[in-house]
């Protein structure tokens, strides 16, 4: 699967969870890897790109989560 496609899937997953459930990095790796049948490392690399670009950010609320940055 193309990296850009994985990035899109991750973003949509985080977006859909916003306001409902905070996702940890491992939640995203497990879910996307299982749903798409790809290695966790592939998902991790795509997620890292999103974080490096500031499209997604890490937050801390009693634990570390991945979220969409506030506008």
């Amino acid at each position, binding site marked *: 699967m193309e990296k850009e496609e994985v990035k899109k899937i991750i973003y949509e997953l985080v977006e859909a969870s916003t306001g409902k459930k905070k996702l*940890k*990095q*491992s939640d995203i*790796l497990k879910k996307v890897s299982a749903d798409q049948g790809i290695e966790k490392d592939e998902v*991790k690399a795509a997620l*890292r790109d999103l*974080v*490096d670009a*500031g499209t997604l*950010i*890490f*937050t*801390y*609320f*009693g*634990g*570390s989560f991945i*979220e969409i*940055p*506030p506008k």
Partner: protein
Amino acid sequence: MSKKYDTPLLDELEKGPFPSFVKEIKLAAKHSDMSGDLLGHTELCFKERVTHWKHGGIVGVRGYGGGVIGRYSDIPDKFPGVAHFHTVRVNSPSGFYYTSSALKEMCDLWDKYGSGLTNMHGSTGDMVFLGARTENLEPFFAEVSSRGWDLGGSGSAMRTPSGCLGMSRCEWANIDAMAITNDITQHYQDEMHRPAFPYKFKFKVAGCPVDCIASIARADMSIIGTWKGDIRINQDEVANYAKTMDIKAEIIDMCPTGCMQFDGKTMKIDNSNCNRCMHCIAKMTKALRPGTEKGATLLLGSKAPIVTGALMSWVIVPFIKMEPPYDEFYDLVDKIWEWWDENGKNRERIGELMERLTFTRFLKDVGLDPHPAMVKEPRRDPFFFWAEEDIER
């Protein structure tokens, strides 16, 4: 800068024989508004017996999920200097060795971008820079990283590994604690900067079982230098010690397994029963030396009491060679983290998970064979002192 607040409660903490953080904040307040407001803010927290700090949130540097701990005042109008008071953790060098110029450089940077207050070191081991506004985090990070420094770990991540000074100054180190600390730091950069665990995970590396850094109580995984084979005895030096110390009272009777004998001239050790506490070696440094085959004991699971009570570490690998490239060690750590990831709840430390699912399950799932030397909590408390009334005379 003139004094802004009366601080009668904080002033009490300046009294007594010990160094006082209040005194240092007052010194910093002479040239820093942030430190000045910190005094007033802290005094109010003490007076009202309630914290006015808010912790966590969305704060950090681009690409990293840790290294910055968000802290805001909930009364920013009253104390604008501490409206933002974020903490920045900078990865400390192995063994905590610094040149004076490096320290001066870091302090100058912190005077420029933060409150000027530091904490050397935090309990994890990082250099802790206290008090920065959000807009100063990226510039500070850019400056320190351009000088070869990096942020440490925070949040649900591998925290900055730390260790004793090992072979650099201690002849009793059985492993190169500084090299191992550095190698773990470099090997697990992603795990330190991008939090992916159920909760925090700390490594601490002690060169020998004396465990000066108390890793057994403070690290999720302790790596403690040890040895195989017989303790080497220099009987001539034993005889010299006999002239100045009561070997029976101070050594033989204090051996936890009673594996030593001394007839007034010759010392004998039943090495098969030695549990390598290292008391005798540490007390008779010229007469006794560890065996020649060096390695480490790995322990897992200690933690301080935050979510549940405090735990001490459990021996999971009685002996492992700790030599570069440490493949066997990293393979095991990866398996342990995978098990934690699969089974751990949010904010559940590895020691708590091991307690919940049982040690048997842990061994089976990560592929470790049970061994009699996998002792649970080999020392209840490395800083335990008996009270007078506890002692039967």
